[in-house]
């Protein structure tokens, strides 16, 4: 009897934890490093894995670098090449962090909440702290998270002639849109 209660308790706890953490596999991250000289360095990745834990405010992302889809084959080649993101060696970018103003976001009440996220971005094999502002939209059961920020490519050991010549923005815009539906 005791054993059964324990198993039941474990099952219930397990179910609650699963219910708290939400994941999706079709998150969107867009990358825009275009300049007045060059409109080609931009891409989007529509198969990003994302997780959110409304209780702790924990947020995580995983994006395969080769999933960034460019219109121009040459630019996609540059992006993945050994000089830039070296995606053969570093195939995945990750972010692990949390919402720092969690008290201001009510996950159980419909609404639009400004959020701030802080964590570690791992890109090109280099880990750097990142803080970004974003928005959390609660509608029914869905949690939508959007954010736009810039990163410095030199922070992640990315350089090259095209970047120095001003053809590629040294601080590309990154936009994130995930909908835990």
């Amino acid at each position: 009897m005791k054993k059964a209660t324990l198993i039941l308790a474990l099952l219930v706890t397990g179910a609650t934890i699963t219910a708290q953490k939400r994941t999706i596999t079709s998150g969107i991250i867009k990358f825009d490093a275009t300049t007045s000289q060059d409109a080609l360095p931009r891409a989007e990745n529509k198969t990003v894995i994302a997780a959110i834990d409304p209780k702790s405010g924990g947020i995580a992302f995983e994006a395969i670098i080769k999933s960034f889809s460019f219109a121009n084959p040459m630019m996609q080649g540059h992006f993945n090449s050994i000089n830039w993101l070296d995606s053969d060696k570093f195939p995945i970018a990750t972010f692990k962090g949390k919402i720092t103003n969690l008290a201001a976001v009510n996950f159980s009440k419909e609404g639009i909440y400004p959020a701030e996220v802080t964590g570690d971005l791992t890109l090109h094999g280099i880990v750097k702290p990142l803080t970004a502002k974003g928005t959390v939209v609660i509608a029914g059961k869905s949690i939508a998270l959007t954010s736009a920020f810039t990163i410095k490519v030199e922070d992640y050991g990315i350089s090259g002639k095209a970047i120095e010549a001003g053809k590629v923005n040294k601080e590309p815009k990154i936009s994130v849109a995930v909908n835990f539906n």
Partner: protein
Amino acid sequence: METGKFKKKNILVAIVIVALAGVGLVWYLFTEKFGDTSKEAADFTVTATALISEFKKNDSAANKKFAEKIITVTGIVTSIEPADTALNLKMADSTGSYVIFAFQQQHIAEAKAIKQGDKISVKGSCSGGAYSEILETEFVTFKRCALNQ
């Protein structure tokens, strides 16, 4: 004297041709766009479960073999996920490991006609796979996909 002039003219013509070809090549490289995947030949034809198990076995070897290749994948659609105004189709195995397909703009409409449980064949550019620490499963992603009809 006459032959000397002729030679000079020839060299000049050759230089102009080479320069034009160079400009043409640069122009081509900068304006080229990825073609319609449905018109491209597949490098590999596999089932979703076979592809997933190959990545599970050794994902660095599988990445070398499949990444940036055009692959035709056959399998049963286990879920359909909205992504912006488009959608992604997913084929998962019994353990939750999956392959996911993001469609080319001109093929989004045909993907929208697919239902969960449909057996389909998709052609796309494989972006490779990795182990997801978030999901604790292997996943393989595709871009620029088209439905094989």
